[in-house]
């Protein structure tokens, strides 16, 4: 470990905590068993601060901070669960549910979906913004996997795991705004991809039913994510 890295002490929800100065607020909160919701964040992948669920308040600032990308500072006082944060987090979930066609009851990931369980944990019972009902394709050309864009929340975990861990960079995102979509290679059917190694990492890091294994019926798709911390840990040991 780099000896020049210092340790900082600060407060999360009135609890004293300490951390290395290169750690993020979210990581420190998790180490201390403090729950901060998140969807795009995944331990072992580069954080991108995109879902905005992990936003926290820091006393003395009116701004909100995405805790997955905010480094700790000496003496700050972090608030993870104010009324304002709760309100905004619910709204973010409502936005995600309204953006595409998430129909939990008939989804392969029903019961094993991070979006679904986040709604439950944060107490979202209904969506107050209108649903947008876009027409989204389902690509089942791959011999083992399916991508259902109706369920995608554009967290880019698949893109990152494919690039950073597998090294294939089969996935990326095309277009922008609400028109953005994950793609394989030149937006060709996944089954025709030249770069895909069929490693299934993307399927298992996907928080929803957007990526699943073939042959799984409603509620049958359980994701196995233990490989990621393991691979990260082994690789760190080598360097």
């Amino acid at each position, binding site marked *: 470990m780099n000896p020049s890295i210092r340790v900082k002490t600060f407060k999360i929800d009135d609890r004293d905590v300490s951390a290395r100065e290169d750690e993020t607020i979210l990581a420190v909160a998790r180490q201390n068993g403090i729950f901060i919701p998140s969807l795009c964040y995944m331990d072992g992948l580069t954080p*991108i601060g995109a879902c*905005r669920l992990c936003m926290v308040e820091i006393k003395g600032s009116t701004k909100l901070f995405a805790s997955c990308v905010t480094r700790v500072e000496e003496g700050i006082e972090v608030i993870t669960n104010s009324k304002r944060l709760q309100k905004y987090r619910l*709204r973010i979930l409502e936005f995600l549910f309204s*953006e595409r066609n998430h129909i939990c009851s008939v989804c392969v990931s029903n019961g094993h979906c991070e979006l679904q369980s986040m709604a439950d944990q944060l107490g979202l019972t209904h969506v*107050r913004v209108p649903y947008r009902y876009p027409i989204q394709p389902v690509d089942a050309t791959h011999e083992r996997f399916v991508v259902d864009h109706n369920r995608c929340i554009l967290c880019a975990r698949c893109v990152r795991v494919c690039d950073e861990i597998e090294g294939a960079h089969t996935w990326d995102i095309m277009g*922008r705004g609400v028109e953005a979509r994950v793609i394989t290679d030149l937006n060709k059917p996944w089954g025709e991809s030249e770069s895909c190694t069929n490693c299934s990492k993307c399927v298992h890091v996907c928080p929803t039913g957007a990526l699943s294994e073939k042959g799984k019926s409603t509620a049958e798709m359980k994701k196995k994510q233990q490989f990621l911390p393991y691979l990260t840990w082994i690789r760190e040991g080598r360097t």
Partner: protein
Amino acid sequence: MTPEELYQIAEEEQESLKRFHFRMFVCTAAGCLSSHGDSVLDALKKEIKEAGREEECLCKGVGCMGLCSEGPLVFVEPDGVLYGKVKVEDAKEIVESLGKEPVARLVCPIDLPFFTRQKKVVLENSGVIDPERIEDYIAHSGYEALVQALTEMTPAEVIDGVFKSGLRGRGGAGYPTGLKWSTVSKGVGGAKYVICNADEGDPGAFMDRSVLESDPHRVLEGMAIAAYAVGASQGYIYVRAEYPLAIKRLQTAIRQAERCGLLGNHICNTTFSFQINVRLGAGAFVCGEETALIASIEGKRGQPRPRPPYPAEEGLWGCPTLINNVETFANVPAIIRNGAEWFAAIGTEKSKGTKVFALAGRVKHTGLIEVPMGIPLRDIIFEIGGGIPDERNFKAVQTGGPSGGCIPKEHLDVPVDYDSLSQLGSIMGSGGMIVMDESSCMVDVARFFMEFCMTESCGKCVPCRVGTAQIHDFLQKIINGDAVPDDLEFLKKICDMVKETSLCGLGQTAPNPVLSTLRFFRDEYVNHIVNKECTAGACKVPAKQEVHS
């Protein structure tokens, strides 16, 4: 190039100008080019040649003179006559009139407030020099500031000067320029970069385009001074691909400056070296955001990343990077040449200097203007702009584009400076100023901007990606007459949420046009919702469609 050589070029150029008794300036910036300013220039040159007056009469293409609505413009010295809407056929008559009575039917009065109320710093050379000749720029004190900085000042003194001048970023947010420079200068690491943000994506703004087309060397000089101050040796100008003329003139200018030894290695025989490369944008408004712009120069999707770290610490390729916009850099040579005190004497307490605005929309004189900070909005629209045409009434003025707001007539006396505008829920922005009369529906204007933000959202963070689409749909619903009064409160709540939770400036400011119209023109929203009527009569309010089976 030594200082002596520079002064020699300047002197020679000035001498050669003096040889001509008459000097004709023809605007060849994009606005006048679209009305064939280039053909007028050719025709005038041809007529002068045919009349055998080449020796006494100079005719050259220059940059923007500002009054774009009257283009193509031709200015004649020493007669001091401005001709507007000049056609190729008029060339002969104009040449014949030199030294005699001007061609009355083409004359534009130059004692208009449009000209007299302006204060030119950034635009001092626009419409005066030939943007494609470095000698002309040098003859107008060009590169003096760079030479002065390199030979007489330390980097710290340059930064101090910019700091004391009170110059604030002209790209929109108004961050103190001196502070930014100082941060980058203290950044550690091998390479440092200077980037000029010329990705003027704000619809309704063309200040940067005009400066680049009219006086490109000024921007290069500003960048070189900045590079010297912060310790960078490589610069990029990120310019919209939609501005082909600006790109061409920039590239010409860079070549000329390199040839003269004002860019490149060992500038002015010092150890300072600085190259500038042009990078083209490709139609993404979000690339005006610093981190997105950097991603774009790196050849990636222009998606912003969370800050900190700020580009001043970790920017292009992870190195300390200074990003300023075109107008900010264009102010720098004048500050160095005339001194920080001179600059600080213009403008208001907290907003120093001048600001260039692109005045457009429902106003008599549209075009490019430069005014001292703190001038009341009313003076810009009714004096400089000449008021509202077609005997209509003023309704609102939009500043700051998709990140700004609409200011109603009650607040027309607000001084134009960073802080006053933001108190009204708008922003200074990059300088777009769109005037609207009573024929514009403010709900529709809000919808227009939200549609813009929706399609320009990069799609990375949820609040901006989905929020802008939801807000847009709400506004459409209101226009369609399908909304209920409670929707307005809900709309405001969503706007507040998008503002506070979005990742970058685009999302954080996207709701401004809606919030400001909700604040000042709520009755127009209510009229749409309750009476299913458009106050301005601009929107089609379709009959409610219940079933489409």
